[in-house]
């Protein structure tokens, strides 16, 4: 088991106060906090070895390049990609998905083809496919979810046929917390010849992920949700696919040779990294991967399961509180709920006055909320630094809000 109390000491922000109360941070699904190891690695990079990468012949630039490219090796090992060429640095998970839609999808799809997503996707794994469908004449369809918030796997057979060229789904829902049976879905989608993109924005920070065992063709995720900085994300892609794809953005760094009317492309992975990359952010992501590896992804997943189970027990004991999504043994540390008739914005605002940071709204999953028949939910999400005591504070905070609003709601 993780020693969450010791881990808390690694995160400087957790000793801050907010609204004059100790901060209870329960919004890591939106963006996680950063350990000192990441902040120090980035600070040291700017102070001692900063220069542009891949260009300078001087020692400083070589050193910056080495640290930046080392981060790629760390990410490669972290997700067990077969080669570093398969790990592309982007801005975030959203850009990674858009890269695939633009550079792969526009060539691979045409009228009569289908894209299959699911009803539990984040807008980033919906809107790029809507745009791609409009542009190519392909049809976008959705695998439905059950009332309990899990994918309806028995509907897959009906939906999957050789017309499906792309299946795109999340490893873990950012609202329901549901962990999807990803390897099985990949296997079944591959059986009809579909290419598979897995949205790992929630999965990669919280679960051990091995892309070769998973078998997916693309995996997208963001550093900022896994203890790393904002401004950098990852697209993993199978080498053969990436080789065959045209570039995404054009500019410096992604070319081999440029003439006035044509250019040739750099090797992988740089073919997809136009312009000056997020150098120090890359180094920060490398430090975040080191940090998560030190804790161990299995231990992190077990800790979150335990904390979420405890929090679900505490919360469901409150009269009028309803949690959306599956039972604790099939979810990660994300708990979205409604509480009496209290609007999520009021709830999040009033919890904030108690020092408790939770998210209110549709969490960038409007189609999912429409499916659940809700306008909005309140979401508490747990990470390595959250403890059972945080769940207790949340439950007490909710009781306090109910008491304060009294008969008004």
């Amino acid at each position: 088991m993780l020693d969450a109390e010791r881990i808390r000491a690694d995160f400087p922000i957790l000793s801050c106060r907010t609204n004059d109360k100790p901060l209870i941070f329960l919004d890591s699904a939106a963006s996680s906090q950063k350990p000192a190891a990441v902040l120090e690695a980035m600070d040291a990079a700017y102070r001692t070895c900063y220069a542009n990468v891949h260009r300078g012949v001087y020692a400083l630039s070589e050193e910056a390049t080495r640290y930046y490219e080392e981060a790629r090796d760390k990410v490669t090992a972290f997700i067990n990609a077969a080669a570093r060429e398969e790990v592309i640095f982007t801005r975030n998970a959203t850009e990674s998905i858009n890269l695939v839609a633009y550079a792969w999808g526009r060539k691979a799809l045409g009228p009569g083809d289908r894209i299959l997503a699911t009803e539990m996707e984040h807008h980033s794994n919906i809107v790029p496919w809507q745009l791609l469908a409009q542009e190519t004449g392909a049809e976008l369809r959705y695998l439905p979810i059950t009332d309990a918030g899990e994918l309806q796997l028995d509907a897959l057979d009906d939906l999957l046929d050789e017309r499906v060229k792309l299946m795109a789904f999340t490893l873990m829902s950012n609202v329901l917390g549901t962990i999807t049976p990803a390897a099985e879905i990949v296997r079944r989608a591959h059986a009809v010849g579909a290419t598979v993109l897995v949205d790992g924005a929630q999965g990669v920070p919280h679960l051990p992920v091995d892309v070769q065992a998973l078998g997916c063709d693309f995996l997208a995720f963001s550093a900022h949700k896994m203890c790393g900085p904002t401004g950098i994300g990852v697209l993993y892609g199978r080498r053969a696919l990436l080789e065959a794809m045209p570039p995404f953005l054009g500019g410096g760094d992604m070319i081999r040779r440029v003439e006035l009317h044509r250019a040739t492309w750099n090797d992988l992975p740089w073919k997809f990294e136009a312009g000056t990359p997020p150098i120090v952010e890359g180094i920060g992501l490398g430090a975040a991967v080191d940090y998560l590896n030190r804790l161990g992804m299995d231990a992190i997943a077990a800790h979150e399961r335990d904390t979420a189970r405890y929090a679900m027990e505490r919360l469901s004991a409150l009269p009028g509180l309803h949690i959306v999504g599956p039972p604790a043994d099939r979810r990660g540390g994300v708990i979205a709920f409604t509480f009496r008739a209290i609007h999520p914005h009021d709830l999040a605002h009033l919890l904030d006055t108690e020092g408790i940071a939770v998210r209110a709204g549709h969490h960038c999953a409007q189609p999912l909320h429409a499916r659940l028949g809700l306008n909005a939910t309140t979401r508490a999400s747990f990470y390595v630094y959250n403890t059972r005591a945080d769940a207790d504070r949340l439950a007490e905070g909710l009781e306090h809000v109910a008491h304060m609003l009294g008969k008004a709601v």
Partner: protein
Amino acid sequence: MSDVYRPHILDHYANPRNQGRLDAPDIVADADDPSCGDQLRLEIALDAHGRVAQVAFEGEGCIVSMASASIFTESVKGKSLEELEALSEEDALALLDAPVSAARRRCALLPLKVLQTGLKTYREPSP
């Protein structure tokens, strides 16, 4: 308490004034706030002098937006179209008589936004 959830706000939320629909409204507008799903419908009937004779609202939303709608509808009674058009965001916030944080301005301003939509359609009906 330095917060927006003051007793008079909670009272307007729990006991909304002017809730419902009018028989023959002159000005009607609906709006929703996509960020939180709040919905509000505002109806106004004018008298012979073009002043607000009756007003009603219906909606679903947070305490701040619904209390604001209740307080706002109380305040517009008797006002001329010109006076309604002159209402600013600061005027609407001042009506609440409670501090509104930056994150909740949109909730508090929903009634004004709906009124402005309604006035625009009233002045320039679509063909």
